[in-house]
């Protein structure tokens, strides 16, 4: 186990190095290209970091010395009221090109989003098309889902094979985690009688977040390294699932506590009901923000440490950055498990509040 972790860390370190090199070339290139016109463009760590954290329509691998960028161009699926649905490769929109009146905005608030270009060539910012593209994040998401499906369906197959005997192979690694989710998250919060109904959701959400967290930590090659759980749309959907499940599990007691909180005088209810309703929303909202912020923050710290090398413009800085990056990666490994645990735990807690029996 230990050696595996170390091997993984070493691997990621090597990959970090590769990424560095690529980015370094990009930087050098940018400097060499524009150096003639401007004196020297300062390295902008903020946009560098944002480019790595934000979603994008292409999976950028590296930029060659001649300025060509090597990237995996992902499919763009876009819908606009006037033009209908369009499906094409994002290569056609690369480097600010316009295709079928679409363009990827390069500056401003809408940076990275696909916008309509009017016939006179100006951007139509009021009429933004709906973008259903298979972006970097979607690919990362699909990859994690496929790995998860393969892992757990093959695991369940081996249960059919071995029957009720002791777990073997992948089973013996995953089963303790499943049992942990069952015993320490589901049973201890929801209770012995009602937990079984919520087990599939809790397990799914736990492993979904865990897999995405872990894959997001691996910087290279492409199916890995997408900042999936650090994207607010993903955490929004997960929190929304928890929200829906919680509301649909709510029993009479739960709703009474919201609309007629026991022990509160009736004239206070006009105040209490909005407060309780805000409470319903704020719980999953906190879930969404917590996961998003934790993962994004981890990525930003790692990338900032890498940026130090370019800010100081010396490879010697690597002696400072690399140990810190390794340390942060270890921490992120812990955070990956921790955030999956916290999200699942809080989901179970919210469900338990909704299904709790009345007791005085």
């Amino acid at each position, binding site marked *: 186990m230990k050696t595996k972790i170390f091997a993984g860390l070493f691997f990621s370190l090597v990959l970090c190095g590769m990424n560095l090199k690529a980015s370094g070339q990009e930087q050098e290139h940018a400097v060499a290209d524009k150096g003639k016109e401007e004196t020297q463009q300062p390295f902008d760590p903020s946009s560098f970091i944002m480019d790595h954290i934000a979603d994008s329509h292409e999976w950028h691998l590296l930029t060659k010395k001649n300025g060509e960028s090597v990237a995996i161009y992902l499919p763009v699926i876009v819908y606009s009221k006037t033009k209908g649905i369009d499906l094409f490769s994002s290569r056609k929109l690369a480097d600010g090109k316009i295709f079928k009146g679409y363009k990827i905005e390069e500056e401003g*608030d809408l940076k990275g989003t696909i916008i309509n270009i009017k016939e006179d060539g100006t951007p139509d910012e009021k009429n933004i098309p709906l973008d259903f593209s298979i972006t970097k994040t979607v690919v990362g*998401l699909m990859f994690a889902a496929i790995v998860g499906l393969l892992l757990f369906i093959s695991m*369940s197959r081996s249960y059919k094979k071995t029957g009720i005997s002791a777990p073997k192979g992948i089973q013996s690694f995953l089963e303790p985690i499943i*049992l942990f989710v069952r015993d320490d998250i589901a049973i201890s919060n929801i209770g012995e009688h009602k937990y079984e109904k919520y087990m599939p959701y809790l397990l799914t959400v736990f492993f979904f977040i865990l897999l995405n967290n872990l894959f997001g930590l691996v910087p290279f090659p492409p199916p890995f390294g997408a900042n999936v759980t650090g994207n607010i749309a993903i955490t929004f959907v997960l929190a929304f699932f928890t929200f829906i499940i919680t509301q649909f599990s709510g029993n009479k007691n739960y709703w009474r506590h919201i609309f007629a909180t026991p022990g509160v005088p009736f004239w206070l209810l006009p105040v209490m009901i909005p407060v309780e309703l805000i409470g319903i929303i704020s719980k999953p909202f906190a879930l969404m923000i917590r996961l998003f912020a934790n993962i994004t923050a981890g990525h930003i710290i790692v990338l900032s440490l890498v940026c130090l090398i370019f800010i100081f413009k010396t490879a010697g800085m690597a002696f400072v950055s690399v140990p810190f990056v390794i340390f942060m990666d270890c921490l992120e490994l812990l955070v990956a498990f921790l955030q999956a645990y916290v999200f699942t735990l809080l989901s179970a807690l919210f469900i338990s509040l909704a299904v709790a029996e009345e007791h005085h």
Partner: protein
Amino acid sequence: MVLLAGSLTTPAIGLIFWTTLIFGIFFFLLSKFAWKPILSAVKARDEMIKGSLESAERAREEMLKLQSDNEAILRKAREEREDILKEAREIRDKLVSEAKGKATEEAEKIIEKARTGIESEKLKAIAEIREQVAVLSVEIASKLLGEQLKQTGEQEKLIDGYLKEIDFKKN
């Protein structure tokens, strides 16, 4: 921070759509093909372990009970043996003492018989001796008194009377 406020914290509609779809499919497939069999297998195993632990406990209790039963039986058997031995000893003692008593009685009876026999023999012998003595005395007297005195019944009676007097007085 300005950048953070923009694209990062605004959930993109496309991503929401894809995440819902992918997570939904993932959830559905895993629930159906993974969690259900895994959880039921784990549950079955838990129950089996619980069941076997319980049955082991039951077996242990039963064994303990059997053991105590065995001990009770052994104790009872030992007591019974003691009783039997005691009884046997009593019977033996009784038999021996009975036999002894009978033997003594018999012996006493024999002795008594012998004594009475001896007594009667003795009386007979005394009577005989008396007769003999009478005859002898008569003979002696006749020899002493000569042949004048004839051997008559009257004389004999007289002598007898004398002898009797002498004997019983002496005795």
